[in-house]
Every structure is written in structure tokens, then in C-alpha cells.
């Protein structure tokens, strides 16, 4: 049974004991069980390690740790062996006995599971040798590999709750506030508002009680930084929130989590219960007289609920809609009480600032943006994953050095940043440093950290339509500019991508965008036109091709493109014919297959299943479809081959 900690001395004592216990293990195998790796069935790999170690009676000296996300999602499931920090990728359960035998018993590498650096042709055994990690500085995210999120002891061993202890013993609330202000920590949710200034507003506002809130309603599709922190290191967020509560003068915290984040919702209540058991949360924390409690609220699937005033309405049990913020939520928030809201990543930075000091924090990053930022690097990039870099690293470094460039040797086209409120940045701006201010100058923003890489096969009009549809679905409908503006934009973009666009449409889109920017109620509406405006600015020729020529140059828009089978290449193997869901392909043995355009639903099955060495299925950017060869035309290539 865990004993309640009654003083700071007790916490130090516990940490010493736990560190000693850890030292009885000579080795640790950390397996990522974040959502990405979980989908790759990493739990089965972890089970295999436990079993194999037991079988060889090594389980007393070698421990298996099931951790949160390690970041390199492209190569999951991952196993990292400590203290050597040997990193194995794409581990299958059948690889486990070999890893145990070779690496854990005989100190040798299993070469084929090590990362292969394509540039040098060498295998990289350790994290610091892998290009994906070389530019990174994982100050916030790096502890994930050291911690089982379901075990508070791991967090304490890694130095957890020492910031809380420091604050309760040596710092006044104002000291904490000043330290955060001095560090110039800006809100990581996208707004970039200085956290310390916001804290001070809430601290000085009249009204009791005051509330502190974690915004974990990370709704940008394709972005999962906050989820991975909450899942993998929930105590860092709890500790940050408590420090904020102490500085602001609040004893009640809320965490508002998206309902979709099942693992986070599983790990958070465990973390809170364990912290309470140890006396790190609740009444009279560590005998200091400071009380603090945390309540978890689940979202129910609404993008707009991540907006601060909407989120606070949802906490009150009302519909999560924004309200005009003539009076800021920092002054009148939940139940009209002063309420300070920051996102997960912002809170997770606070214990670091307290432990390492504001000066250390300021040594990272750029003039206006201090610290590091976690990005979710996804899309057509070679190495999908979570990347934590100091602010000010360029887009090119993130996409090409960390991310390894574009998949399948395709051409880079754009990177979309800032989620649905952001914009698409073309190649010519790739050398911009990424921070709160620079990307805004080119019509996008850093936002909460989503980075979707697009290549030559991505249609920018389709991307604009995608975001407009998304925002149209998610608009709460309260104000007219957002509700009706998006509706009209959706209609126009649908027409354009279906070949019914007119020259005047582009002008109307620009006008609507300007109007929404100026007149919408909340940030969602004010920024909703960004995807359309930025793609029109940088990729206008693509819009014009859709409107004038009725063609989709990237061959994406389903209503415009045409699938064809090249009679010169078709071997009449029948694979596409069998798989076509609408029987739109005609053919038989030794007879060239033909696509019946009237039946084709453009699902891409034939394109997907045609073996790559044959590559007979092609796409055309637009119609009209050329006359197919006569039915019964014999296969060419096969005879030539003979």
C-alpha cells in the first residue's frame, strides 16, 4: 500500500527509494503503446518481451516498460533498450526472442531492425545517430520513453513533482507568476498569447473561486501532439496545472478532453487517483496547506468547443458554443468566475520552467518565441511522426532533414500549417523560421503544431474544399459571416471541383473570405477562409485549370479525372476486373481490359491493385475520355515478351 506523503522530505525520500529500486534492474525495454503503435499491435510485442524474459528467467534484472508515444510513428512498433539507448523499429512478436538473445544477453545488435540511413547506407543503432532525431530537442516530449503513464512512480523517478515541491517550499505565488512571465511562455494552442500575462489577469480579477483549465480538445485533424503528451506523460500536465493553480490562487482545475482520445481518458483518471493516493493532489498537499483538485470533462465531438469561451460553456453542461468576448474569459469564464485556460503543451512546459529556470527556457527559440514546439509531421512526408524542435527551425529543416523529404521520390508542393485555420505554404517560403510570428506573414500560422506535407499528387483546390467542408460542418452557426460564408464557399468549391466553375467564382471567393475575416464572431470564423485564400494566392493556376480547362492537374478531383487502361501495357491478368466494385472493367483472358466510363465511380481500385511493374492503369487530368480500343484487342506485351 502506498503511504501518503506528508511533507516535501517524504517526497525526496520516496524518490531516493524508487531510484534505488530501479537500479536493481540492469536493463529496461521501453515499448511504445501510443495510439499509432497500438494500431500496429505493439502490445503484442510487449507481451512477447514479458513472456520471453520470464522464460529465460531474466525478468528480475530486465524490465519491460509500456510507454506513450516515442514520436517516430512511421516505423512502429518501436522498442528502445536502456541504458544503451539502442532503438529497434518495426518489431514483430517473432523478432523478440532474437532481440533478447542477441542484444540483452550477448550485447550484439539485430542489424535488420536498426534504422537504415538511406543517405549513408549505414545502420544506426542509437537515437542520436538517426537523422529523424538529430535536429530535435525533446525537452517536453522526451520523458515519454522513461515513463509508464499508468505508474506515478516512473514519473517521480524521472524527477516528477520536484517543481511542485520547489514551489511549495521556496516560492510565493507571485514568484511563480513572475518566473513564467520572465520565461515568456506563449500559449501553444495556436494563439500565442503570453501565458504569464493571462495568469496575472486571472489572478488579479475579482471573484472567487478561480478556475484553471487544461484545453485538451485538440481538434485539428492530423495533429496529435497534445494527445501524445496526455497519453504518455499525464502527470506533467497535472503538475503544470497545479503550479498554475498555485500562482493564480485557484484550487480547482478542469481538464477538457476530446472523447475520441480513449487512451488519454483511460490514463488520466489513473494518474489523478495515484496523485491523490500519494497526497500530491487533494487537501494540504505535501503538508504545505495548499489544496487542489481536478475534474475531467469529456468533449463530445465538436471542433468549435476547443475555443475558450465555448469550452467553458461545455464545462457548465451547456452547448459548447463561443460567445462574444467583450469581457475575456480570464476575467469572466466558467460560471462567470475568473478562469485561466491553456492547452496541454503549454501546461506541460510549466514544470520545466520552474525546475530549470526562466533563463534556461529563454535560451531556446527565437527573439519573440521561446522554448520548443512539438509538431505533428504528417501527410506525404517520408517519416510521419511527432517532432519537437526549438522555435525558429525552418520549415525546410523540419520537412526534409527531420521528415526525410517526400515519400516515393515525388515533388514537394506545399506544407499546410495551423490546422483548418491555417494556410498552405509553397516551396518558396520553405526557409522561413517556424515560430508564432513568421508564418503569419505569409498567410498561414504556426497554430497548435499540425504540419501536413503535400506533394505533386495533392490538388490544392481539393484541399481548400476539404477544409471548407470541415469548417462548414463544425461551424456552430451562431454568426452569419461564418455560417453563410462557409456555405457559399462550399457550394462554389464544389462547382469548381466538379467542372462547373465560372471565372467570376474566384473573385466571389476572395470577397467572401475578406468579409468573414472582418465580421465573424470567433477565431474559427475569422480564420475559416485562410485555407481558400492562401491556396488561391499561391496556387491560382490550379484553380484556373479547374475553371477554364475543366481539368484537375494533380488528378485528384473525382468528377474530373478519368481512369484508363493502357492497351500497350495491359497483360489481361484480370486483377482489376475482379476487384472493380461496380463491374466497370470489361475484358477476358488475353484480351486488353477496358474501363466503362459510365459505370466507373473513380474509387481508384484498379489503379491501386494493378501490379506496379505492369502499371497499366493511368489517370487523366480531365475529359473527354479518349475512345477506347475495340473490345477483343489482344494483349500486346505478353507476346513480345515471348
Amino acid at each position, binding site marked *: 500500500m502506498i503511504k501518503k506523503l506528508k511533507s516535501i522530505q517524504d517526497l525526496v525520500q520516496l524518490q531516493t527509494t524508487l531510484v534505488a529500486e530501479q537500479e536493481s534492474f540492469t536493463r529496461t525495454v521501453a515499448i511504445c503503446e501510443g495510439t499509432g503503435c497500438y494500431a500496429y499491435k505493439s502490445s503484442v510485442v510487449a507481451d512477447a518481451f514479458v513472456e520471453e524474459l520470464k522464460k529465460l528467467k531474466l525478468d528480475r534484472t530486465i524490465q519491460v516498460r509500456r510507454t506513450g508515444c516515442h514520436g517516430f510513428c512511421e516505423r512502429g512498433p518501436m522498442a528502445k533498450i536502456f541504458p544503451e539507448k539502442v532503438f529497434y523499429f518495426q518489431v514483430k512478436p517473432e523478432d523478440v526472442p532474437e532481440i533478447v538473445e542477441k542484444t540483452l544477453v550477448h550485447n550484439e545488435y539485430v542489424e535488420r531492425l536498426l534504422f537504415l540511413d538511406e543517405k549513408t547506407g549505414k545502420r544506426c543503432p542509437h537515437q542520436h545517430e538517426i537523422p529523424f532525431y538529430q535536429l530535435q530537442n525533446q525537452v517536453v516530449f522526451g520523458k515519454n520513453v522513461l515513463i509508464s503513464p499508468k505508474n506515478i512512480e516512473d514519473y517521480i523517478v524521472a524527477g516528477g513533482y520536484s517543481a511542485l515541491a520547489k514551489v511549495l517550499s521556496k516560492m510565493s505565488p507571485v514568484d511563480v507568476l513572475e518566473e513564467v512571465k520572465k520565461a515568456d511562455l506563449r500559449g501553444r494552442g495556436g494563439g500565442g498569447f503570453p501565458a504569464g500575462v493571462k495568469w496575472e489577469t486571472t489572478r488579479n480579477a475579482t471573484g472567487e473561486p478561480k478556475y484553471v483549465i487544461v484545453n485538451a480538445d485538440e481538434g485539428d485533424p*492530423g495533429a496529435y501532439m497534445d494527445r501524445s503528451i496526455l497519453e504518455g506523460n499525464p502527470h506533467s500536465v497535472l503538475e503544470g496545472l497545479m503550479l498554475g493553480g498555485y500562482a493564480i490562487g485557484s484550487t480547482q482545475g478542469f481538464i477538457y478532453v476530446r*472523447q*475520441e482520445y480513449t487512451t488519454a481518458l483511460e490514463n488520466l483518471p489513473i494518474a489523478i487517483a495515484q496523485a491523490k493516493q500519494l497526497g500530491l493532489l487533494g487537501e494540504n498537499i505535501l503538508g504545505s496547506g495548499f489544496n487542489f483538485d481536478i475534474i475531467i470533462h469529456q468533449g463530445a465531438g465538436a471542433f468549435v468547443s476547443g475555443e475558450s469561451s465555448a469550452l467553458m460553456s461545455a464545462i457548465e453542461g451547456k*452547448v459548447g458554443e463561443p460567445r462574444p468576448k467583450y469581457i475575456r474569459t480570464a476575467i469572466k469564464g466558467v460560471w462567470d468566475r475568473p478562469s485561466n485556460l491553456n492547452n496541454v503543451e503549454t501546461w506541460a512546459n510549466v514544470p520545466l520552467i520552474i525546475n530549470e529556470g526562466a533563463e534556461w527556457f529563454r535560451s531556446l527559440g527565437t527573439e519573440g518565441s521561446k522554448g520548443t514546439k512539438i509538431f505533428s509531421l504528417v501527410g506525404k512526408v517520408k517519416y510521419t511522426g511527432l517532432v519537437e524542435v526549438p522555435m525558429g527551425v525552418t520549415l525546410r529543416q523540419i520537412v526534409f532533414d527531420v521528415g526525410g523529404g517526400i515519400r516515393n521520390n515525388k515533388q514537394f508542393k506545399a506544407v499546410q500549417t495551423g490546422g483548418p485555420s491555417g494556410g498552405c505554404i509553397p516551396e518558396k517560403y520553405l526557409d522561413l523560421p517556424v515560430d508564432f510570428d513568421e508564418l503569419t506573414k505569409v498567410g498561414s500560422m504556426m497554430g497548435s503544431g499540425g504540419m501536413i506535407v503535400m506533394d505533386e499528387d495533392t490538388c490544392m483546390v481539393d484541399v481548400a474544399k476539404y477544409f471548407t467542408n470541415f469548417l462548414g460542418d463544425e461551424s456552430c452557426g451562431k454568426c452569419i459571416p461564418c455560417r453563410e460564408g462557409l456555405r457559399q464557399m462550399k457550394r462554389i468549391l464544389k462547382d469548381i471541383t466538379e467542372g462547373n466553375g465560372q471565372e467570376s467564382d474566384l473573385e466571389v471567393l476572395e470577397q467572401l473570405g475578406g468579409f468573414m475575416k472582418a465580421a465573424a464572431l470567433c477565431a474559427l470564423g475569422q480564420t475559416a477562409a485562410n485555407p481558400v485564400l492562401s491556396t488561391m494566392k499561391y496556387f491560382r493556376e490550379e484553380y484556373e485549370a479547374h475553371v477554364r480547362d475543366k481539368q484537375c492537374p494533380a488528378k485528384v478531383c473525382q468528377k474530373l479525372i478519368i481512369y484508363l487502361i493502357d492497351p500497350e501495357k495491359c497483360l489481361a491478368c484480370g486483377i482489376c476486373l475482379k476487384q472493380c466494385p461496380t463491374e466497370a472493367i470489361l475484358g477476358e483472358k488475353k484480351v486488353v481490359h477496358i474501363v466503362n466510363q459510365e459505370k466507373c465511380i473513380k*474509387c481508384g481500385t484498379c489503379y491501386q491493385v494493378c501490379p506496379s511493374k505492369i502499371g497499366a492503369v493511368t489517370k487523366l487530368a480531365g475529359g473527354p475520355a479518349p475512345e477506347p480500343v475495340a473490345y477483343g484487342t489482344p494483349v500486346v506485351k505478353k507476346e513480345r515478351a515471348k
Partner: protein
Amino acid sequence: MVQLEPAPKVGAVSDNVDYRTLDEIIDGYSADPSMLIQILLDVQKKMHWLSKPTLRRISARLQVPLTRITRIATFYTMFSLKPQGRNSVQVCTGTACHVRGATELLTRTENVLGLKPGETDEEMKFTLKTVNCLGCCALGPVMTMGGAYHSNPSVADLKGLANALE
């Protein structure tokens, strides 16, 4: 004054609603109106949809007007006011999946199941949904069927997966 419908006896089962389970959920939150969304989420999870008698019961127990509950139940995407199939099929249409071919995957899935997003088949076997992000972008385009993740399945894969489920 809010007009409340007479609440059925505690624990009674009528209108095909399991009032016992429903009351347990409500009591778990001490019938606190500020916990309305949390209660609806729990009910949705246990019963897979929100029927009209269920909403009426919640209204009566929480003393919250039915119109307000309906507004919340229709605002959020997690709630369904129609019965759901035994297996949920979710096609991710997050941005990362979108640029990697989620539209084609959705078209294939629609065709194999004979359903459009939001629809449930007559045998109540499948409900097809699109979701904004499943958070495993490295697998994109990705979908889940019967709780398991599948990366860019072909028509043949989809047919196999669909047939393997009850």
C-alpha cells in the same frame, strides 16, 4: 416553470429502455445538470444511441428542459438519435489521410457495404461513419472495422473484413 413528464418508476423497463442502467448512470453523477454532457456520453456508450424516452427520462431526472437536451444531442457528433449497427466502421477523413487517398478509400468502403456515411444496414450489422482523425497518421489512409485498424484496404480486403464479422 418547466413541465416535467411523469418519470417511470425507478428501475422499471418499458419503451424498450433499460431505466435501471439509465438511472445508475444519472445517479453516478448525482443528477447534476452541469454533468449533462457526461451523462449523455455514458448513455451513448452503454446503449449505443439516445432514444426519445431516454432523453425524456434524463430531462425529468436532471430538471433540464427537453429542448436543451435535444440541442446538445444534435450539436455534438458523438451522439446518435438513431439506433446503430453492431459494428462501427470508421473511415478517417483527417487531413493527413485525405491527402493520402481517404476519398477513394471511402468510395470503396461505401460500395462494399452499400452504405453512405451515417447509414446503418437493415440487418443492423454495420454503421458507416467518417471521423476527423484517428490519430495514427502513419497508417493513412486508415479505417477501423470492428475495433481493429486497417491501412488502405483494397476492395478484396474490405470484403474479407466485412464477412469475418458477425
